[in-house]
């Protein structure tokens, strides 16, 4: 049992290191900004996720009892990584795509990066049509 857990721990550590290296290498190597956005997401999900699971396992293996703090960090990273990626993609669109190539937004406001007015307190989502 302990030997199997050790093998699992070693496998998780190797996966974490490999994916972390691949993510950073992709950030360095890929050509297009949107491709570069793709690479580090692997490092932040599989890489750090495997490292934190290895930390849970090592606490279980070396000391008695479990440690659930790692899962909080994993959940936080999994929630925040897509938000950061979305903002960076918006920034890329703002920097490279011309105004006339963007589709209409469907609301009375322009695209966020071209709209000069300050934002409302409430987001300007499309309102539903009149109830029938």
């Amino acid at each position, binding site marked *: 049992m302990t030997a199997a857990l050790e093998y699992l721990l070693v496998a998780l550590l190797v996966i974490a290191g490999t994916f972390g290296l691949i993510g950073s290498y992709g950030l360095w190597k890929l050509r297009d900004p949107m491709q570069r956005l793709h690479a580090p997401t692997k490092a932040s999900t599989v890489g750090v996720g495997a490292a934190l699971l290895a930390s849970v396992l090592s606490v279980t293996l070396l000391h008695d009892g479990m440690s659930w703090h790692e899962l909080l960090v994993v959940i*936080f990273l999994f929630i925040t990584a897509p*938000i950061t990626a979305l903002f*960076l993609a918006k920034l890329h669109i703002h920097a490279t795509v011309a105004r006339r190539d963007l589709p209409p937004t469907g609301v009375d406001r322009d695209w966020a990066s071209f709209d000069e007015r300050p934002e409302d307190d409430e987001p300007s989502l499309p309102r539903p049509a009149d109830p029938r």
Partner: protein
Amino acid sequence: MIEIALAYAMGCFAIGLVMTTARLLMAPTIGDRILALDTMVVNVIALVVLYGIYTGDGLNFEVAMLFAMTGFVSSVAFAKYLLRGSVIE
């Protein structure tokens, strides 16, 4: 065997940290700099966690969580500033 795997993982993340630092210094666009900073934070979190396994006294939970939070907030604030001209409207 665990020591070898731990050294391999820490070495990989350390090399990744060097790569992201080089990308941060030599980035074609400002978005790449923000992305490189975000990836650096992720690599540092992994290094902190692996160091916790190495010393054997569990996870440095506060350090990892603080890095995750400040990294997320700084990336979003940078992107928001570049998109809208101010962080909080």
